[in-house]
């Protein structure tokens, strides 16, 4: 989004492709940002407005590129759309949702709760348009959903489409997905209910999340007051993600703040290898560290088992105390790392070993921005998006390469 608005506000035409049902990406699913603890919705609203007010940006959701060919200044991008089963006639009145009887997993809340099979992706969704879940297509329920719409917006016959776009430059801003915590076998994610991931923690703490913002144990809905945050869950690990995901330390500091803001008698333990509160973010680390109810344990947790009452028990070595521990908690949050979105039609020569898109050394006009280019935080992502926008419009202008 940032690259698109920056290029468009400089006077260039932009096609913004989004594979999902709404713009906003992972940021829309965050509760707050570090270090200000402000809500991402604020910047999202500004950017949505910038897009709404700018006719130079054409937004295509549920659309992904499948092939890119051509060269600098003249690329052909073949894209594929997936059906939403709701067309532009939708007013977001919500009558379809009332007609839906099936509940489907709520992807916005990482499946921690459900939504009706006709749903608005989230309250701030852009476009503000409902989606009919493919799960009910072909059932009588779908017909009921269709007939509930007064505006003829439900189109059950929508089919995937393929078409070509012709552009001067391409920016990959395809972001990331959280590392699959089930691959961290010894942490029991998926088996121990009270072991969750950091992205789930964001939803748990968000007012629009499954618990309306209260940090509760998934197993029984009890208040989670003893919380362990496990760093490098997958990151900095040659068996998983070899790189450091950069944001997890700071996100966990923020999660400590979430818990501490809710419960006066809470205790948060952060298990870490190195706390990477780089640059001015150091002050955020200092502030969280000053709280006597936030403890830092330099230890990569070895394994988690389920103890009495569904309490996850952490096992490992406290390296600074040289002590083997078994400690139980109400809730354990795995700070899983960022994995670049895969399956992009990008030449191997343009990606690094991890799948980040790092074009270099050629004279094409294919660029990357944000986490597609490496593990970056929000601010750095926008910075890289702004830079990518300039490189892209240089190509559109027909300027020099370099």
């Amino acid at each position, binding site marked *: 989004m940032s690259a698109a608005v920056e290029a468009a506000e400089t006077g260039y035409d932009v096609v913004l492709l989004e594979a999902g049902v709404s713009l906003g990406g992972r940021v829309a699913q965050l509760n707050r940002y570090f270090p200000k603890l402000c809500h991402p919705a604020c910047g999202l609203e500004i950017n949505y407005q910038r897009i709404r007010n700018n006719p130079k940006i054409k937004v295509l959701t549920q659309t992904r590129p499948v092939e890119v060919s051509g060269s600098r200044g003249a690329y052909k991008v073949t894209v594929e759309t997936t059906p939403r089963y709701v067309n532009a006639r939708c007013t977001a009145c919500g009558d379809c949702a009332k007609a839906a009887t099936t509940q489907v997993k709520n992807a916005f809340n990482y499946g921690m709760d459900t939504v009706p099979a006709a749903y608005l992706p989230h309250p701030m969704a852009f476009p503000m348009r409902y989606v009919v879940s493919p799960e009910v297509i072909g059932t009588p329920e779908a017909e009921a959903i269709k007939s509930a719409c007064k505006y003829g917006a439900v189109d059950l016959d929508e089919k995937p489409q393929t078409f070509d776009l012709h552009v001067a430059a391409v920016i990959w801003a395809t972001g990331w997905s959280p590392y699959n915590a089930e691959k961290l076998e010894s942490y029991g994610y998926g088996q121990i209910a009270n072991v969750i991931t950091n992205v789930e923690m964001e939803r748990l703490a968000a007012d629009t999340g499954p618990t309306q913002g209260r940090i509760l144990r998934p197993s029984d809905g009890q208040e989670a007051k003893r919380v362990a945050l496990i760093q490098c869950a997958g990151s900095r690990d040659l*068996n998983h993600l070899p790189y450091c995901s950069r944001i997890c330390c700071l996100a966990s500091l923020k999660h400590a703040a979430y818990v501490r803001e809710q419960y006066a008698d809470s205790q948060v333990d952060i298990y870490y290898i190195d706390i990477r509160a780089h640059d001015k973010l150091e002050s955020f680390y200092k502030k969280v560290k000053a709280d006597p109810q936030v403890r830092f344990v330099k230890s*990569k947790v070895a394994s988690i088992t389920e103890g009495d009452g569904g309490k996850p028990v952490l096992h*490992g*070595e406290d390296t600074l105390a040289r002590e*083997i521990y078994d400690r139980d908690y109400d809730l354990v949050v795995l700070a899983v790392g960022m994995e670049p979105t895969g399956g992009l039609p990008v030449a191997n020569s343009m990606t690094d070993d991890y799948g980040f898109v790092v074009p270099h050394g050629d004279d094409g006009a294919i660029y990357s921005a944000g986490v597609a280019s490496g593990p970056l935080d929000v601010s750095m992502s926008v910075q890289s998006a702004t830079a990518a926008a300039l490189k892209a419009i240089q190509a559109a202008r027909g300027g020099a390469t370099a």
Partner: protein
Amino acid sequence: MTKPLPQTAARKYDLGFAQWVYDNIEGGDRISLCMQCGMCSGSCPIGDQMDNGPRKTFMMIRAGMKEEVLSSSTIWNCTQCYNCTVRCPRQIKVTAVLQSLASVAVAEGYAPQKPTLKFSKAFWRSVSWFGKTDERIVTAIYYFSYGLMEGFRLAMANLPIASRMVKAGRMGLLLPHRTKAAGDLRAIVAEAEKIQNRKRAGS
């Protein structure tokens, strides 16, 4: 060529020992990659019974603490469950390193009266006599290596087990099974030891 183990350093963080370990120990080449996360020590089933644990052992290697490393209990208490090896985020062959350090400790005379060593010696007796490990003989030699009286005490403690094993048909009372060409095997092993010693000496 392999170099002999360096003399104990006069000061901490002398890199002589660390470099020797990196070059001469199975899996040693990756020890320098250890980031001291504690995954290994935390994963160890009997980690709470080790004086240093693998993680600290690696730091001690880098600090040049040869004496402390080779005389620690850590290298003798590895159960070889390989949890540390498969979980190490830096893919250090922790199990292999500990095993190799133990053999270095023996070779360098740092390991008096260690149960593992005794067990290992008993094991070798059996292998060199019969080509196979005979559990009865290994156990007996092992227990008696503690001295006659202590041997009896230990053996008696396990007597109920032995008698039940015999009953279960899993411990014979006859002569041990033998590898027919046990002589060949002894020769091979002797030759291998010779090569090993040559390596250790040659520089």
